[in-house]
């Protein structure tokens, strides 16, 4: 075999270098500067409501047998089609948790999917939904988390093939996924309905499972909350549209009761597929918020 000429080799090296540089440039992180964080008197009680509305604990719970089973120190394997993730420790431990995170670090994680060191988070962490939360709300949530007992928890690394490159590649995915405007609060409708729409679409990130995704793993908003394949790989996630027409629930009071009690009152659709853990978190919300969620959900035709 004839070896490629020096000129060909140089040309190939040049093309590869340009491609690599373009990839690097296109996938660079774009964090919000610390100066963009407004002065805000935090409201921890509101932070707690958001913590439960987002069911943070459902994914960030510690593995079975942990010393502090009710604290969100993370580490329970989260299986996805691309690999297994070990969710972040959300307690204020300085070494393994959020202890050293600035307000800007937290806001960047929640709205831009960026770690404090600038690395991209995989969208298994649903910042696509959280980015619709106002910064003041995020600061309240952060304040709630920082007030929890610190737990030191070292997790295994995510088992995603080519983790480093894949992580950098998320930057390209963000170019498409985050180009779409985030959920925007409606200007019309009752206060309860608007509150429900916010809780469901922003902190609640219900669409992560209840809205089907395109091949690019971006929610297909034409089928907003219409259900789809279960992200765990087996079975389906039910549609949240037409819940009254399909005789799943009679009215707002009925759905509120179901969300507050789940299968403890025999609402068996609220178990299985991971929904039991979500329902347990929703049950911790003030009743007015659960009613607001029910009000909004029953408006989806």
């Amino acid at each position, binding site marked *: 075999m004839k070896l490629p000429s020096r000129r060909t080799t140089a040309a190939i090296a040049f093309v590869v270098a340009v491609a690599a540089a373009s990839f690097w440039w296109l996938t660079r992180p774009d964090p919000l500067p610390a100066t963009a964080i407004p002065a805000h008197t935090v409201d921890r009680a509101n932070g707690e409501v958001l913590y439960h509305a987002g069911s943070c604990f459902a994914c960030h719970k510690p593995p079975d047998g942990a010393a502090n089973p009710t604290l969100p120190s993370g580490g329970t394997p989260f299986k996805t089609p691309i690999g297994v993730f070990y969710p972040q420790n959300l307690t204020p431990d300085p070494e393994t948790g959020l202890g050293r995170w600035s307000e800007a670090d937290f806001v960047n994680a929640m709205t831009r999917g960026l770690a404090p060191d600038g690395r991209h988070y995989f969208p298994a962490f649903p910042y696509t939904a959280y980015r619709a939360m106002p910064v003041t709300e995020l600061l309240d949530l952060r304040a709630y988390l920082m007030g929890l007992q610190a737990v030191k928890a070292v997790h295994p690394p995510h088992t995603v093939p080519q983790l480093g490159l894949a992580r950098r590649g998320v930057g390209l995915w963000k170019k498409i996924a985050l180009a779409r405007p985030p959920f925007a609060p409606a200007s019309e409708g009752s206060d309860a309905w608007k509150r429900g729409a916010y809780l469901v679409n922003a902190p609640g990130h219900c669409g992560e499972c209840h809205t089907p995704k395109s091949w690019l793993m971006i929610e297909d908003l034409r089928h907003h909350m219409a259900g789809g394949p279960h992200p765990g790989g087996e079975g389906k996630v039910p549609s949240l549209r037409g819940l009254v027409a399909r005789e799943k629930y009679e009215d707002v009071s009925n759905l509120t009761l179901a969300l507050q009690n789940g299968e403890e009152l025999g609402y*068996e659709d609220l178990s299985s597929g991971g929904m039991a853990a979500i329902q347990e978190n929703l049950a911790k919300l003030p009743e007015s918020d659960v009613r607001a969620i029910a009000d909004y959900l029953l408006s989806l035709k």
Partner: protein
Amino acid sequence: MRLTKRTLAYSASLSIVVAGAWGAAFASDPAHQRHEAMEAVQESFKPLRAIAVKETAFDAAVVKKNAGTILEKLKEAHGLFPEGSAGGDSRAKAEIWTDRAGFDTAMKNAQAAAAAMAAVTDEAAYMAAMKTLGGSCKACHDKYRLPKQ
């Protein structure tokens, strides 16, 4: 074709045989049988929920009867999970067989909760019994039942 009495008789008996075989196939399918048993559990749960949400008044006789049916049907269903009966329309998770001891415990917890509910005679104890019973359904469904197919 001219319908004679004989052809009619033949077709009728053939239909009976086919229908019978069809029925027998279902009846001997454990996944189908346990599903029926669980549907019966759900039906009996409804009057209990109505009491819990105060749609109907507490009635010890109603509680005893329905909790009794739940217990009986849960026991029946528990015996209908032989190895290899997952798949198809069944929502049974593989964990039922890979963690058989855990599954058996969860099923026994539900039966104990149903038995305790059947013994409730006053409204004060009712809500606690309801939470335990519903909670036992939830615990098992959370761990051992797939989302809808």
